[in-house]
């Protein structure tokens, strides 16, 4: 058995060098393209001239967060094959739906929309729905941000031996730094670079890990002999061999892979969530008109990039084969547990070069997604609330106000992660993902194509989705006896969809002449 590696001075230097190199390139691209930005509006959506390759990789970068590029290894390590459902082996389906539906955002940009909630204001001629959607995004993105913090802080802890809490603070400072010097513009070009980096490193690490563990067949044989161990707990007698993990205790029913109901819910989640993520669909705000051939190019990028999460999952399987369940039982890995496996395999299988590149990739995925979400939350306040109420505020003031709002939206999820880090980060993020999928796939994605949608249908879906989100099995659901993630997720997604369609059909849509400018 290959020993579990520890950080060395050489590795610390490599990680710092890789992150500095990543930051330098991102800052160069951010500052270079920011020079072309003259107004607050241009800063929000650019010039509408972004091509298909940049859009494709930017979409991949915004989709591949700390969950996909890092948490997936923890899922396969912790849950075996049943972890595959949250790894998102079918994520290409969802990203493609986003590619198909999201392109119409361009139409709303021409009608004056500059943010996703503002698109809803244009679509339904309602400032109220803009504000409500903005508020919903803030709540859900804060939860999603916690996972990004844990991913980056875990890599930082493993590779530099810094205590976890200090790693979290370092992550927060890096986010502030990243935003302050120009990366915060979130330009498609920075995201494109990140998408290429994540894809290249994810594929390389996955393939290297597969050989490091002795090949695919030995991993299959090894998983047949291993059993589930809860983070910090004792080994059970439940085999990791199957695609469902029949955990019976109520507290474990929050894991989607416990039965086929949970599995069905994850399939729906991955179909809807890429379109439901506001930071994904916003990638199309600055896209230029593309040809049919270019659409196929974007699909190719989505396929290559969308296989990256599967390769990260392979890393976790490899780690489980080589080290068994030691990361779940050894207290030195708390509170990271199985989530530590990605960084450890990169160190053991790839040495300093690959471990450094992997750390930079997790940094890219976590911090860039975090920065993007922080920006969305900050603009939710300034553009969708303040500007909504008082449109006469000068754009320069709004820009400064947006910068000020970055601080609380960096601090809130940081405090959450410091005081109560999630044991398996992807599980927590899946809660937020279900809500974003169930709510925004319909409210944003479907509303762009369905003439009959009404603001009341959208409002009903938003409010219902938020209420059911609070009833997550690991939040308040358990107080009502709702322990099963699958039932909860299906209730949220199917309930939101049903309300959206039924209430829309029962209420009056916009007049035809108003709809004409959006549907032609």
């Amino acid at each position: 058995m290959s020993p579990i590696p520890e950080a060395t001075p050489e590795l610390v230097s490599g990680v710092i060098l890789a992150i500095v190199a990543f930051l330098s390139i991102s800052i160069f691209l951010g500052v270079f393209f920011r020079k072309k930005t003259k107004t607050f509006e241009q800063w929000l959506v650019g010039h509408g001239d972004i091509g298909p390759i940049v859009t494709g990789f930017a979409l991949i970068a915004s989709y591949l967060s700390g969950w996909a590029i890092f948490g997936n290894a923890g899922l396969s390590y912790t849950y075996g094959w049943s972890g595959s459902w949250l790894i998102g082996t079918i994520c290409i389906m969802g990203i493609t739906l986003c590619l198909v539906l999201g392109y119409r955002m361009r139409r709303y940009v021409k009608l004056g929309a500059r943010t996703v909630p503002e698109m809803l204001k244009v679509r339904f001629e309602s400032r109220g729905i803009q504000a409500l959607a903005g508020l919903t995004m803030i709540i859900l993105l804060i939860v999603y941000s916690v996972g990004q913090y844990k991913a980056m802080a875990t890599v930082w802890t493993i590779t530099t031996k810094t205590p976890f809490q200090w790693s979290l603070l370092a992550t927060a400072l890096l986010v502030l730094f990243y935003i302050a010097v120009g990366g915060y513009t979130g330009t498609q070009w920075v995201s494109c670079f990140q998408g290429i980096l994540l894809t290249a490193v994810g594929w390389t690490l996955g393939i290297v890990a597969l050989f490091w563990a002795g090949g695919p067949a030995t991993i299959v044989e090894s998983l047949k002999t291993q059993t589930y161990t809860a983070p910090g707990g004792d080994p059970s007698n439940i085999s990791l061999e199957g695609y469902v993990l029949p955990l019976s205790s109520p507290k474990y029913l929050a894991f989607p892979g416990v039965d086929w109901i949970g599995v069905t819910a994850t399939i729906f989640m991955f179909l809807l969530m890429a379109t439901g993520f506001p930071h994904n669909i916003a990638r199309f705000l600055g896209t230029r008109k593309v040809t049919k051939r270019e659409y196929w190019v974007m699909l190719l990028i989505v396929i290559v990039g969308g296989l990256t999460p599967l390769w990260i999952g392979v890393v976790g399987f490899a780690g489980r084969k080589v080290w068994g369940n030691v990361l779940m039982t050894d207290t030195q890995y708390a509170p990271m547990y199985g989530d530590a496996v990605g960084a450890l395999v990169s160190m053991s299988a790839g040495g300093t070069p690959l471990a450094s590149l992997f750390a930079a990739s997790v940094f890219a995925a976590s911090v860039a997604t975090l920065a993007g979400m922080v920006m969305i939350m900050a603009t939710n306040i300034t553009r969708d609330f303040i500007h909504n109420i008082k449109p006469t505020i000068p754009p320069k003031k709004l820009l400064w106000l947006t910068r000020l709002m970055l601080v609380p939206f960096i601090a809130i999820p940081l405090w959450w992660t410091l005081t109560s880090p999630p044991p398996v980060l992807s599980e927590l993020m899946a809660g937020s993902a279900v809500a974003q999928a169930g709510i925004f796939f319909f409210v944003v994605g479907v509303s762009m194509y369905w003439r009959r949608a009404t603001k009341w249908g959208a409002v009903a879906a938003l409010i219902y989705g938020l209420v059911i989100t609070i009833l997550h099995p690991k939040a308040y659901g358990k107080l009502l006896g709702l322990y099963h993630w699958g039932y909860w997720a299906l209730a949220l997604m199917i309930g939101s969809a049903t309300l959206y369609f039924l209430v829309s059909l029962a209420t009056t849509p916009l007049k035809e002449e108003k709809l004409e400018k959006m549907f032609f």
Partner: protein
Amino acid sequence: MNTWVYLIIVVMALCIILIPIVAYLFGGWYAYWGHALLAIIFAVMAILLKTRFYWEED
């Protein structure tokens, strides 16, 4: 909608339905990468639908 559109939608629906079936019947790496293959077929069908039958010009 013409027959081709219906056919493409049926293939896309089949890709979704086959996901748990492949996991149940085959498991292991076959299901893991089989899911990716189903997702790619679904994606190709979706783009085919958009570019051949529902292309929108500005």
